[in-house]
């Protein structure tokens, strides 16, 4: 936005200051995330730029920390890299073990959260829904209640119910934490939903299930998917509950990073962090594409 020609000098200076301040804020937001990417290629075990790196000397860079991600925890990390070496990495590398767990737990809990959450959002968005506010407040509360309190509660509950140190326990807990996001995104999509379409489908003889599959679901799908993505990311990033109720078997990537930061801090963590940043860029892109699709659909239906 250019300044209008009648702007005073004071206004021009003020505008410059404002833009500079905003630039600073956006830099503050993005710089910490960008700065770890080159550092993860550091040839030295430091958390800062070496002289070689600043001089763009190829010797200053290496993939050793990415290699370390694979080899950490292997029985024979220095063996010849044949099929047996890869099998060893797949079976024993701690980061791979953690990644497998993160995906298994994340996907299972997302499926539960999305299925139950979408169903509930359909009920909540009906005009006849009784106690709507109270129920909504309860269903959203896992997002608001401090994680430490949820984790503490689950710790006691699971140790009595025999769910501590089990995959099922963590999947259920993560599903519970992801549910608010599904509810929020799906109810938001449903709020712009034209309910006369349901009546039209019903009057044309469609059963409720057919109506849901052929009319409602395609229209709210972007909301459902973005809710599912939120739920997945919640699980994928969650560490407090895992810290409290998981054993080594259920070690996830965030827990592995947590332990790494607290114990043997090495640039391996930066390599893992860089991969996770790429992962979040992919998620963000998916979400943006979904948002555009919703807007397009809105344009057609509204």
């Amino acid at each position: 936005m250019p300044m209008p020609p009648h702007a005073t000098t004071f206004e021009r200076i003020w505008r410059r200051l404002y833009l500079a301040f905003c630039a600073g804020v956006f830099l503050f937001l993005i710089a910490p995330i960008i700065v770890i990417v080159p550092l993860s290629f550091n040839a030295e075990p430091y958390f800062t730029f070496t002289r070689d790196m600043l001089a763009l000397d190829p010797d200053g860079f290496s993939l050793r920390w990415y290699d370390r991600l694979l080899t950490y925890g292997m029985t024979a990390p220095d063996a010849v890299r044949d099929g047996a070496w890869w099998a060893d990495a797949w079976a024993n590398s701690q980061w791979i073990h953690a990644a497998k767990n993160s995906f298994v737990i994340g996907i299972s809990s997302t499926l539960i959260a999305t299925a139950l959450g979408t169903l509930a959002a359909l009920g909540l968005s009906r005009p006849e829904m009784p106690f709507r506010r109270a129920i909504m407040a309860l269903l959203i509360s896992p997002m608001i209640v401090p994680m430490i309190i949820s984790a503490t509660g689950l710790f006691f509950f699971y140790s009595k119910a025999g769910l501590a140190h089990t995959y099922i326990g963590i999947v259920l807990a993560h599903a519970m934490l992801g549910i608010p996001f599904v509810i929020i995104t799906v109810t938001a999509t449903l709020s712009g939903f034209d309910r006369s379409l349901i009546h039209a489908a019903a009057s044309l003889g469609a059963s409720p299930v057919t109506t849901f599959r052929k009319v409602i679901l395609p229209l709210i799908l972007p909301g459902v998917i973005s809710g599912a993505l939120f739920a997945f990311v919640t699980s994928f990033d969650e560490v407090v509950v895992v810290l409290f109720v998981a054993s080594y078997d259920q070690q996830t990537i965030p827990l592995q990073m947590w332990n790494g930061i607290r114990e043997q801090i090495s640039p391996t963590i930066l390599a893992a962090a860089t991969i996770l940043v790429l992962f979040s860029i992919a998620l963000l892109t998916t979400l943006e594409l979904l948002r555009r699709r919703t807007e397009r659909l809105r344009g057609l239906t509204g």
Partner: protein
Amino acid sequence: MPTATDTVAAGDLGPLTTGDGTPLKTALARATRRARLKALFLVAPLLLFVIVTFAVPIGQMLYLSIYNPVFSDNMPRLSSWLRAHDVTQVRGEDAFKALVLDLTEARANRTHAQVGTRINYERTGATSLFKSTARKIKRIKGPPYKDQLLALNEEWGELHLWTVMTRAAAPHTAAFYAQALDLSYDAEGDIVRAPENRRIYGHLFLRTLLLSALVAGLCLILGYPAAHLLASLPLKYSNLLMVMVLLPFWTSLLVRTTSWITLLQSQGVLNDMLVSVGILSDNGRLELMYNQWGTVIAMTHIMLPFMILPLYSVMKTVPKDFVRAARSLGAGPVTAFLRVYLPQTVPGIGAGILLVFIISVGYYITPALVGGSSGQLISNQIAFHMLQSLNWGLAAALGALLLGGVILLYWLYDRLVGVDNMKLG
């Protein structure tokens, strides 16, 4: 039953009915009830799930803050004696008899250490007292018990120990809340403020509130202009800047915390930069990490999107013409901003501040990793009592107080913003 007005309204035809002859009102009521049930039926599975995996565990946890049967279960004789008698009186032989018999049994069941730990919460040194006495309990041969026990350790004669045991004898206790509020019981069993050097939690709650308020304030200062820029730029540019807000929002918390450690530690990027530019000398490096500053900086970064997003969605709806109109009517830029623009963004400010404050108050991960000892919040203390000191009653009491505060804020948020108006991304 059709009322008189219904009949009048329907004229000579009688009350309106549906095809099968049911009065319309009844049919409508039935249909509404069915629709309500259907809606409830859709929500029921999730409601059940959330109650089982969330509400019940938290309820149980809260119950632990007032319920601790360790002493009354493992010292049954002494507990019933203590419940029946007034401890301010001199304790007689029968009390010591119950104590010795219970301790002998507890020793056999290997529960004496637990019992000692329970008393130790309120009286330091009790764990070792119980352990050492239990070890030597076999030396006590028959009555009279009192003198033999006092000969083993004269602490058993102290009134304070007995008042603590009296409170522990009741399985339901307010002692953990008292401790969480920096209160303690004196030797007579009256509630007083804890001695100055043992007042920990009041200070910690205050620090949690102050740091959260500071983070919320910083987020507002940084987020308001940024959100304004996002809302006023043409979509082409603002989408690009929006990525800079959303990418941190979507990036793993541990990644962001790791980044801040990389940047802020004394051998880290920021300090190295300042040293190489010459602003700092090599031994004058800033201590930005493992103290309160670490917590504040990292948390401001983590919370900033939670401030910008609600502000942005409100600012997007403010018509630009209003400020222009104010200016054309003679208002200066400051007046136009303060009297026209700012009031219209107040809902966004409220939503952002409350959201950031609510999340910050319960924060655990970031303070634990970058907060050092002075940047710890109340959550860290709860985790400490859960996992290390194993004083679960106190952890639960601290958790209950924190939860109470958060629920209050959540209620406020729901009143002001409405939970169903929450926007994500």
